[in-house]
């Protein structure tokens, strides 16, 4: 894992003290809320439905045990004993007091963490693949790139006030586990003639105008990735629609200009960038790479897993993925217990996972955009011990990518932007489809729920998506089918008129029944939907 150098630490420490002064001035009446609001947002502090909410950045979803333990400690000391892992792989605390915020940021800084770039029209926290560095199919480890982009984007003076927020994702595998094409810019590391570079996708995103990012360049050599991104951002910064918040994302610019024209302008700017010679120093990337070298894996480990305990065997089949190193495995920890709140974890659960990471996963863990956790380096011989501890803590659900592994935003239970509650619907679906055999029979089926059109719950990318809307003060839910955030990315299509909360549960039941009746051998729900289309599903739902 990357460790801060003196520059990283000093800018984070300085930011904490700057914010401490700003909070003191706000509480003393020397700053109005209009003056203070942009300052607190730059430090991840929102005012939500019930209280201040602090969004903590987890760069490319990677944490060590010490950092995770600190997140649990803060939950207990300053909040109400829990945190919420988000679809941006961040962590949100829901009950923060304004006067405590600087102390919390100071505590985070002691473990090389902060809340910078978790709000505002800047380049947000860089996202990546939760299997980065441990997946056998990746071309290169994407984490050094994610870290380089973190450093490049942190307080970048030219890109601090973009037309709108800007999200970048880096992956390096054919399988897209990070919804790369639904980011403002997605980078996929590829190899050409033995040289590593990147495919660049620009103009993806969800929100009120969902778009899958088109490919704008099929290969940028690795030493030119940063200047190429700089060119992409410059064109956007210059021509993005600052006049209309709802048309200000890069996806609208790329769509309105057309892919070819946007690409032409980027290439012109890129040529200019090359003349300036602003490539990041090669030594810095080399320095960063050292932090992501393979850990000291043990050799000659057993590949055997004792599957005598059926509940453990079920969990292994669902939650454990192949690791590139013989004798090791990747463990996915579900934060979707039956009837639970997707992404929520108590302080005790957070601390337990920190302990497990330290004891069994070479001091490392990951957060996924699907609001789950990952232990990336686990010896197969340790799987049973880990499962037992997870089970005791209510963290041993075996439902990865199944119908109850639901993504849900905080919704109207917490969020001031929401129109409807997401979590109660997720809980009802979780109960309705709780039967293990039924879930297994349905297979991969990704349900994603958003409480408003901002789509933090990724409903556009759900095989089954649900959008909560406000219909004359009453919660109503629109159903969509056929979305995907994976390498076969697509935007779901709305089935028709919306439903009550109970009504949408019944509609999803009908959708899954039709799928089981219509599917052909080996088809996932998404495959069947794409083969037979929307019409039979509409007939099943609306009669």
């Amino acid at each position: 894992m990357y460790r801060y150098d003196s520059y990283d630490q000093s800018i984070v420490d300085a930011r904490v003290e700057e914010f401490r002064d700003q909070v003191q001035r706000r509480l003393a009446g020397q700053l109005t809320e209009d003056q203070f609001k942009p300052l607190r947002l730059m430090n991840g502090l929102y005012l939500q439905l019930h209280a201040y909410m602090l969004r903590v950045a987890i760069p490319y979803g990677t944490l060590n045990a010490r950092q995770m333990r600190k997140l649990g400690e803060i939950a207990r000391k300053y909040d109400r004993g829990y945190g919420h892992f988000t679809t941006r792989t961040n962590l949100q605390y829901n009950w923060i007091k304004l006067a405590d915020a600087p102390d919390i940021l100071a505590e985070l800084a002691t473990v090389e963490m902060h809340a910078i770039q978790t709000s505002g029209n800047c380049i947000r926290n860089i996202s990546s693949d939760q299997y980065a560095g441990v997946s056998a199919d990746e071309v290169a480890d994407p984490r050094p790139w994610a870290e380089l982009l973190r450093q490049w984007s942190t307080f970048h003076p030219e890109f601090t006030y973009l037309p709108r927020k800007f999200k970048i994702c880096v992956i390096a595998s054919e399988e897209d586990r990070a919804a790369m094409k639904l980011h403002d810019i997605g980078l996929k590391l590829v190899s050409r003639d033995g040289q590593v570079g990147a495919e660049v996708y620009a103009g993806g995103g969800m929100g009120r105008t969902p778009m899958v990012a088109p490919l704008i360049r099929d290969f940028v050599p690795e030493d030119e990735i940063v200047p190429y991104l700089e060119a992409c951002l410059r064109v956007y910064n210059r021509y993005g629609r600052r006049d209309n918040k709802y048309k200000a994302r890069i996806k609208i610019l790329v769509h309105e200009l057309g892919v070819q024209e946007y690409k032409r302008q980027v290439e012109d700017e890129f040529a200019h960038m090359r003349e300036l010679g602003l490539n990041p120093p090669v030594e810095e990337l080399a320095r960063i790479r050292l932090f992501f070298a393979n850990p000291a894996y043990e050799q000659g480990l057993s590949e055997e897993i004792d599957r005598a305990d059926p509940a453990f065997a079920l969990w292994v089949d669902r939650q454990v993925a192949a690791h590139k190193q013989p004798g090791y495995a990747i463990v996915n920890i579900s934060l979707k217990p039956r009837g639970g709140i997707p992404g929520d974890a108590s302080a005790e659960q957070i601390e337990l996972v920190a302990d497990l990471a330290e004891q069994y996963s070479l001091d490392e863990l990951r957060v996924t955009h699907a609001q789950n956790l990952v232990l990336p380096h686990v010896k197969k011989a340790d799987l049973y011990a880990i499962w037992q501890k997870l089970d005791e803590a209510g963290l041993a659900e075996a439902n990865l990518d199944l119908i109850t592994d639901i993504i849900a935003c905080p919704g109207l239970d917490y969020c001031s932007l929401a129109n409807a509650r997401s979590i109660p619907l997720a809980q009802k679906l979780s109960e309705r489809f709780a039967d293990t055999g039924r879930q297994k029979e349905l297979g991969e089926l990704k349900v994603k729920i958003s409480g408003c059109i901002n789509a933090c719950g990724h409903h556009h990318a759900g095989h089954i998506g649900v959008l909560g809307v406000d219909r004359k003060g009453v919660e109503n839910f629109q159903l969509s089918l056929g979305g995907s955030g994976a390498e076969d990315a697509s935007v779901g299509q709305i089935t028709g008129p919306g439903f009550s909360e109970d009504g949408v549960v019944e509609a999803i039941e009908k959708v899954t029944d039709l799928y089981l009746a219509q599917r052909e051998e080996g088809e996932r729900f998404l495959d069947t939907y794409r083969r037979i289309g929307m019409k039979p599903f509409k007939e099943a739902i609306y009669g």
Partner: protein
Amino acid sequence: MKILTGNDLGTGDVIWWAGDGWSRQVGDSVDVGDKGEELARSEEAALRVVGAYVIDATVTDEGVRPAHIKDRIRALGPTVRPDLTLKPNDADAGNWVI
């Protein structure tokens, strides 16, 4: 009736104008008539509230009921965590917001 709500500047708690100060119980709300905006400005200036705004509400057998579900959830707390609402011992309290 018109009632005034906002968040406590320091704690962020949801608060309701009770006539002579702020309360955490929506049931203590009083009708502010056409004085809400003026009250909001003066109370914000006095650093007692942030983000104050006027909403419609009715008086029912159960007390003051904000017209919109968002404000009813603000008044109660998150319906998915009864233990963190203002009625932690009432498991059915969430039904009030619907």
